[in-house]
């Protein structure tokens, strides 16, 4: 980086810091404590508080719901370096994201790469402004890990497709305005061919949804049914029958996102949480030597993973990242998060077994524990991730 660039970046940092200090309401400087406290946008969006509204609107007006998207599509137009500075400054004061959105995390990057100009103009600004809430129609009941074997049909009818089939694991489908969806447009082609990536309105005739109850209780997941839904062919992103390319690109974003999930590095350290239940022994160590060992091994691995996540970003910036590395991170991050919750359950003992009491916040810990079991399934199972590493990184035969 040249000296000029460095100086410009410093100027930007000072400005951003000043603006954030002046504009981020104090209430928005701590993490959301419940799902209701997260703003997802959309046609029926409601703000849970006035500070939430203010924070969202100010950030939206600056284009900072999507700081690195081009300004013409409602973004902030920041460079990668500026975006990193902004993230650091937001983290400094604990500012929460003003808008949560699958449009931002998933569809946006895919549209930017594969969408035509009309599609970008139509959809990106509404995502940036939180006007339209999106959901993802990928998984199907009989496809599972073998995503590409999807069966939802899109039959050609003049300028339209007529879509019929079923999706599963559609997060927040019951709240979403639009869906980005994989459909089979050529049933005679090989399974990775003949798939198209298409967008449509969830209020279209023939769309219905049904929430899925998980082992952890209520969930954002739905089953989603399409019964002869009519969608213009112009809503296909990229080339017809080449939707798998778009899907793969988007999956990489999803995996990178999931691998960063969980409570890594936030909240109280496990050792302290365990101390609440088991107390210290005569030497001030946790009075459960085996649990203590498990926590210590976890802490070593968690710190190492944090370094690796940092390095993955740096490698990407340096253009040295392997495109499949997100699968490696997804695998390890989700397995580690499951380990974390196993330890939390052991540390919590009897207290962590209550399911419906006030005292247990309606079983917050056991529900979170059970929820983590899906981490290694959703967004590509651990087995699929290992297969990708074996094939694409290690180049093992037949993988």
């Amino acid at each position, binding site marked *: 980086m040249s000296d000029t660039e460095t100086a410009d970046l410093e100027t930007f940092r000072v400005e951003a810091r000043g603006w954030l200090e002046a504009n981020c309401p104090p209430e928005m400087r701590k993490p959301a404590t419940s799902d209701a406290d997260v703003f997802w946008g959309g046609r029926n969006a409601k703000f849970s508080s006035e500070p939430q509204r203010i924070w969202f609107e100010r950030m939206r007006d600056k284009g900072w719901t999507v700081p690195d998207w081009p300004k013409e599509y409602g973004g902030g137009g920041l460079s990668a370096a500026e975006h990193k500075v902004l993230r650091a400054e937001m983290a400094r004061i604990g500012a929460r994201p003003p808008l949560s959105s699958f449009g931002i995390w998933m569809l946006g990057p895919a549209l930017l790469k594969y969408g035509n100009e009309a599609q970008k103009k139509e959809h990106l600004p509404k995502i940036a402004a939180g006007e339209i809430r999106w959901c993802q129609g990928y*998984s199907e009941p009989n496809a*599972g*890990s*073998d995503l590409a*074997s999807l069966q939802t049909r899109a039959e050609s009818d003049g300028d339209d497709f007529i879509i019929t089939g079923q999706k*599963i*694991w559609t997060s927040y489908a019951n709240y979403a305005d639009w869906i980005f969806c994989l459909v089979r447009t050529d049933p005679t082609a090989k399974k990775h061919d003949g798939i198209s990536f298409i967008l449509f309105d969830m209020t279209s005739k023939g769309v219905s949804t049904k929430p*899925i*109850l*998980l*082992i952890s*209780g209520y969930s954002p997941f739905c089953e989603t049914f399409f019964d002869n839904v009519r969608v213009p062919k112009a809503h296909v992103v990229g080339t017809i029958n080449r939707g798998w390319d778009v899907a793969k690109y988007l999956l990489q974003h999803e995996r990178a996102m999931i691998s960063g999930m969980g409570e890594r590095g936030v909240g109280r350290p496990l050792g302290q949480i365990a101390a*609440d*239940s*088991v107390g210290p022994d005569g030497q001030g160590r946790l009075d*459960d*030597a*085996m*649990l203590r060992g*498990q926590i210590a091994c976890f802490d070593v691995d968690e710190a190492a993973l944090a370094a690796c996540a940092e390095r993955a970003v740096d490698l990407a910036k340096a253009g040295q990242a392997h495109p499949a590395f997100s699968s490696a991170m997804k695998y390890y991050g989700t397995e580690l998060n*499951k380990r974390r919750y*196993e330890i939390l*359950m*052991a540390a*919590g*003992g*009897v*207290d*962590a*077994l*209550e*399911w*419906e*009491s006030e005292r247990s916040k309606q*079983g917050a810990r*056991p529900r979170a524990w*059970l929820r983590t*079991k*899906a981490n*290694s*399934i*959703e967004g590509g*199972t*651990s*087995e699929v991730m*290992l297969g990708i590493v074996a094939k694409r990184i290690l180049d093992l035969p037949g993988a």
Partner: protein
Amino acid sequence: MALVLTEEQSMLRDSARGLISDKAPVSHLRHLRDSKDPVGFSKEFWHSFAEMGFAGLLVPEEFGGSGLGYVEAGIVMEEIGRTLMPSPFLATSVVAASALNRGGNAAQKSEFLPKIASGSLLATLAIDEGAKHRPLQTSLQAVRAGNGFKLSGAKALVVDGHVADLLIVAARTAGSAGEREGLTLFLVDPKAKGIAIERTIMVDAHNAARIEFANVEVTADSVLGEIDQAAGLLDGVLDIGRGAVASEMVGLSDEVFGRTVEYLKSRKQFGKLIGEFQALQHRAAELYIDIEITRAAVMKALQALDADVAKAASSVAVAKARAGTTATRAVQEGVQMHGGMGMTDQFDIGFFMKRARVCEELFGDANYHTEQLARSRGY
């Protein structure tokens, strides 16, 4: 003694399995949960169970029981583990019956054991107070008052605590938390003044309660065993309970494994049965081996208990520790190999994961028992 079931034991297993799988499959638990059943188990079924001699399985014949041993109790627990049937068997027929039989005087035995055998009395041991199982940390106070005692304190996770007719309460009559000396067991009527019982809805939809004691008066007759000297009695009773829970976990592990292997043989992905994928085959084989080794360790512990409860501690520690890690592995692999379906409440597999977690905590988890083994070996 050979580590295989005798013919009589195999018959017992078959009869328990027949009854339980017929009358109380996993859907039975699901129904009790979804209907928010106030009792949490089927009283009607418990009576059939008692009629077949299961409720009094460990009760000596002179008190109307079957007079069988811990191996037999384990056999029934294993079958209970297969369908996750909620029942008073563990708390009443195994733990409380053993406490009364091993620690009770003639009057106490005659009063309570026949009722346990007939299925008309439910009893439970109230021991743990903190988040983790630490029997010697008992600090519920029993202060002498006149000829009797007054109990004050609280108990967490009392299995069947909200339906029990008799509480066997571990209290401290001397010494302080952590000491072996000074523990005493009391037989307490849950309807006594000063007792507050809160049913806790648990992750596994089985029964448990928190119980508070505020100056609860009990007579001197209610002491079970010797005053201040309950630690030894407790060791034995808890080890019996551990052996029983370990058996339940073997049944649970075996069942969840069986369901998983069936799924591997029927679910297709990438044009193949997923059971054809070698990585899953190897993991399934490792899990099978794990379960078989644990099964043997648990059987060994039950035989050791039958031979001499006082000398079974190491075997029991090994069994409960192994049962915990094996069941945890079995349910984790079960959910993972079932994929997204395994995460839905609609599939039964999640019930096994939840019950395994509670069994792991009951009477000490794998960490606790591994630690016990290390200490007993002096390192």
